[in-house]
């Protein structure tokens, strides 16, 4: 206590607090830089950990998988049949596969989702099992590359035959054949928990299998694991699969990094995997060509997608089957739910990770940056406290109005998109996107042209709005960061230019035009839809930002992914409030006072 007292007295004597208040914008910026710095430190040696199996019952690769030798001939046998019906309608393909599965003793049924082709699924009830738990092997007819999932279907058929020979299963096995792993798979998972008549207990783990036309051999396998809304599968499941792959001496990869690249395991490969991981977690659920694992998000299902890459490598098709088989054997051993290990982590390579405690400060720092700059906007704008109280009603009602608009848009725009005729869907999405970009341009650049408006916010309202919005973003990041770290961090970092606006408005009194251009640029760059436009065009060169925008608009309806709501009810209103504050804010000011203020600082 005495120490704190001494320090406080010293702080007071040296007048540090007013100095700190003046320096708030700088401190805030330093925090934002520190946040990025924190991320850059994570891939350094000593900052990350090696993966390990936390749940002893899993015992990965402790049993020999017999999916080998003559099973290879059988996989090839099935593949030729699958190849034959590549161009048939899905219903007739499903019929053939259904016949095979029935002959192994599986119970087959269809799920009608009313939108796409019916989804075939088959249940192998575990011999003398208690029929309360299940594992799912999902094999879409078309892979995420829109390729015919030839190897996948053949492998699934051969595996199904192999599984049915064993009596060791304690959990039921379900095979699902959706058209794609997007809406058809998600709606099946949802129906499984609401309306399906044939069920087999709660699903513990799920594997989505993708093996296109790679032939007998593939180079390496890639794993996808991002769930919806920041959910990830239990790290133990991924480790199990990776450990099995390692024992099979299969090269592996994650986050679109080829295996020869990832196996170098240098600082830069780890950093790249980390950043890509954050990126793909942010965007999960927004693309229609999804790997499919996110369809299982929720219901406490742990899921990942395994995909064979390349066609002439050292790895053999049955090896991928053995990964699936051994992973199922491991999950089969579980006497409890997946509860050990980590549910929140970032992978740096297939064998290295950082856990939530280590990476969380990055998002916390951004959040603090916004909180500080919000405080700075209040204290440094030269508005008296009484004036803020006076403007409080206007501030709150304006912000409330903006939020209300956000709510209306949040529900109306997806509704319009979903109900648009199929052939006009792209046009509708494009128009919505254009309108947002127009709003962005209008709000960002209108202050450059001294348009006289009847409505003016006084200074208190202007800075109050800016401060409130910045605080709002800070709180948004704070609430999101544990649930959806990646989204929180990305929003935080991309919205950082918003924190420059209040210091720049003060600078404007010195050099009006230059500062005004900077303000406009800051606003323009930090608009969510500008970011979306850039990101969308970069990710999908073909259809541009439209596909990402469509994903954003429809992902709640199709997959229950709430990224759209975070954007339209969190980021966008805050941006708009700051934008309106700048547009309608009072321009005529007491120059001398402001200049004095700047000089003194």
């Amino acid at each position, binding site marked *: 206590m005495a120490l704190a007292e001494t320090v406080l007295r010293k702080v007071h004597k040296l007048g540090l607090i007013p100095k700190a208040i003046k320096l708030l914008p700088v401190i805030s910026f330093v925090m934002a830089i520190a946040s990025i710095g924190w991320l850059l430190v994570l891939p350094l040696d000593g900052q990350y950990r090696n993966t390990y199996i936390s749940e002893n019952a899993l015992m990965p690769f402790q049993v020999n998988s*017999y999916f080998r030798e003559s099973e290879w001939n059988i996989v090839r*046998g099935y593949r030729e049949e699958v190849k034959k019906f590549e161009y048939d309608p899905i219903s007739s393909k499903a019929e053939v596969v259904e016949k095979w599965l029935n002959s192994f003793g599986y119970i087959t049924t269809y799920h009608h989702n009313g939108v796409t082709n019916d989804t075939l699924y088959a249940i192998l009830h575990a011999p003398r099992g*208690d*029929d*309360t738990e299940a594992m799912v092997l999902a094999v879409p007819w078309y892979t995420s590359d829109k390729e015919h999932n030839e190897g996948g279907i053949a492998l699934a058929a051969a595996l199904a035959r192999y599984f049915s020979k064993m*009596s060791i299963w304690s959990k039921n096995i379900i095979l699902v054949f959706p058209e794609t792993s997007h809406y058809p798979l998600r709606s099946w998972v949802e129906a499984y928990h609401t*309306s399906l008549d044939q069920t087999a207990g709660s699903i513990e783990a799920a594997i989505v299998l993708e093996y296109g036309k790679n032939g007998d051999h593939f180079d390496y396998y890639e794993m996808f694991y991002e769930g919806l809304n920041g959910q990830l599968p239990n790290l133990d499941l991924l480790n199990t699969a990776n450990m099995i792959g390692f024992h099979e001496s299969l090269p592996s990869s994650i986050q679109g990094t080829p295996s020869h690249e990832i196996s170098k395991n240098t600082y830069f490969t780890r950093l790249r995997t980390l950043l890509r991981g954050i990126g793909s977690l942010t965007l999960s659920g927004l693309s229609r060509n999804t790997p499919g694992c996110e369809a299982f998000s929720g219901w*406490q299902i742990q899921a990942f997608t395994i995909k064979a890459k390349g066609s002439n490598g050292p790895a053999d098709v049955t090896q991928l089957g053995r990964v699936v088989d051994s992973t199922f054997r491991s999950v089969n051993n579980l006497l*409890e739910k997946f509860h050990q290990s980590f549910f929140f982590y970032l992978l740096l390579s297939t064998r290295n990770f950082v856990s939530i405690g280590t990476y969380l400060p990055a998002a916390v720092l951004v959040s603090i940056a916004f909180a500080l700059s919000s405080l700075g906007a209040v204290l440094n704008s030269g508005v008296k406290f009484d004036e803020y109280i006076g403007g409080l009603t206007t501030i709150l009602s304006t912000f409330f109005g903006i939020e209300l608009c956000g709510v209306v848009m949040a529900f109306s725009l997806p509704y319009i998109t979903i109900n648009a005729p199929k052939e006009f869907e792209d046009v509708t999405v494009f128009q919505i996107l254009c309108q947002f970009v127009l709003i962005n341009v209008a709000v960002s650049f209108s202050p450059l042209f001294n348009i006289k408006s009847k409505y003016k916010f006084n200074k208190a309202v202007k800075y109050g709005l800016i401060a409130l919005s910045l605080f709002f973003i800070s709180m948004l990041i704070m609430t999101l960061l544990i649930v959806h770290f990646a989204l929180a961090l990305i929003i935080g970092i991309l919205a950082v230019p918003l924190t420059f606006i209040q210091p720049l408005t003060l600078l404007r009194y010195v050099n009006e035009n230059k500062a005004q251009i900077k303000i406009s640029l800051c606003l323009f760059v930090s608009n969510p839809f500008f970011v979306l436009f850039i990101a969308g065009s970069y990710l999908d060169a073909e259809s541009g930002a439209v596909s990402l925008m469509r994903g954003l608009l429809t992902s709640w309806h199709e997959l229950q992914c709430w990224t759209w709501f975070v954007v339209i009810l969190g980021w966008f209103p805050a941006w708009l409030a700051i934008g309106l504050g700048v547009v309608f804010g009072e321009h005529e000011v007491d120059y001398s006072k402001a200049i004095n203020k700047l000089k003194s600082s």
Partner: protein
Amino acid sequence: MISWLKLLFLVAVVAASERYYNETLSLKPLPNNNLLASFQFHIESQPIDLEYYDDHNKTGTAKHYSYFPRSLGPILEATNTRELHLRFTQGWWDSGSWGLLPQQGLQSGGTGVEMWAVVEAPDSHTAKQNWFKLSKTLSGFFCASLNFIDDSITAFPRYAASHPKGVVLNPSNHVYLIRASLPSEPICTENLTPFLKLLPTRGKAGISSLLDGHKVFDSLWHGMSIDITTECVSAQCHYQMEQSVNAIVDITRSIRKKQEGGLPKPTPGDKLRCDDSKTFNIWQCFPLDEPTNVTWSLDTIYGRKLKGPAFIDDPESTAIKIDIDSNHWDVDMKLDKDDALLSWRVSGYEKDQITEYIKEEGDHDIEFITDDSTFTAPVEQPPLYASRSLTGYSLDKGGFRTVLTNPSESESVEFIYFETLPWFMRLYLNTLTMKVQNSTGTYEVEDESVYVKNRYFQPAIDRKRPSHLEFVMTIPPQLTLFFTYQFDKSLLLYHEYPPDANHGFAVEPAIITVLDKSNHGVYEVRTTSVLLTLPTPDFSMPYNVIILTCTVMSLAFGCIFNLLTKKVITENELEKLSEQSKLAKIVSGLRAKVQRLKSLVRR
């Protein structure tokens, strides 16, 4: 077919009443190379003098039970149990391809262990006491966790079709039907051993000599049951016990195990059975279905042979019943006696039901030969299909969805739906919604009374009583009825969570008893059990809380202690005082000396 079975049952009962022990092994090949094997044992005690046991009458008289197990009799008498029913079942019954449950499902339980008893007592409290005494005693007896039966899972079924017949020894008493089940109890060899010990043959002779734990439990589905009833003719009472082991055996797997061992090793290349009509070479093979022309025997399945009849002096004590399609199946009886191997054919033209008695000593084996195993004796359609599944997304609430289908073309089916749910599922019956589906579509049910004739619901009491739900329902032909209801999951006390290894809380199966016109249970079927995940708190949290609390406490203590022991002064006073403190004096003294030194150096 049903009437025929009934007749057979009647015959069996009539025949049984003449002798104290008999046993039957029924074998029925099913499609997909499966086999239903059903072991039935019938045991009767000699007439005994039963008395009502209470505080006034504790000793009882010594009794002679003959074939009836001596170990069970006194337990039943001491707890005034008039009927005892035990079920040990594991697996999922595939009613789609196996049809009716063996013995009309009346001997099959749900997953885990199920127990119900009829207890004579003056009131329900005494009945319960006797019930707990009974379950605790039987727990050790059958190596099952029956001792975990407590108030929170015990129910008194209300509309049960098998209602107590009412053997009351003391006229002022009543009989109580009490029931409990343990759905997460695994069934294994340790349950079979005491089961065999109850038989007069002790598993050494007769059909029970086939029962080897490793083989019996390597099945697709299996169930053991014990039913003890007290039969009284005027004042003369005796115990009657039916024991059974029913199992569905996967013949293909049994043959493979016999030939290749237990490991699912890949088939050697030269033994692959490939489809010639498709590409077939040394690198590729489209597999054919499992062979249908198979030959197997009891030895293939059980790894043992049947060791003579149960009792040499009783030529009809051990019966074998076989149900086949005689056009495609041949059955040979083989006897290994005094190093001579005898073999004779028991099947014949249009002889689909075969009954044979084991009369001679020696190892008997029954060989089944078929040219096409897809042809079997007709599989009967059950009167009702039932399934139940868990719905819902979150950890705090969920729902049940039950699907009941009447497959019959013409007859509506009446049944009792009985369900007890653990107290931590807080049931909301107002959320009960019904839907029906027929060939034309799915419809909401406006008036539930069309399908639900009678209902009974007893809400749960936390930790004291399960919720208990019974519906008497009718479903018209060719109709599927869905009903759903919602529940909340409650938080338990920390010590009520099971230790680490737990994958959820098992909810016991619902029991559906199909009634005939005279309200007798003619068929019983159970849904599967369900695993319920309860919201589990992070148990490391208390430690964090303790640490945090201690830190806050110590901080608070520091402040208050300072305030209590120190004087509050202004800052100026402090600065003056601090100048006069000893340390300040030393420091200033030092400074002065340094100054002096400096001035000296300068000079």
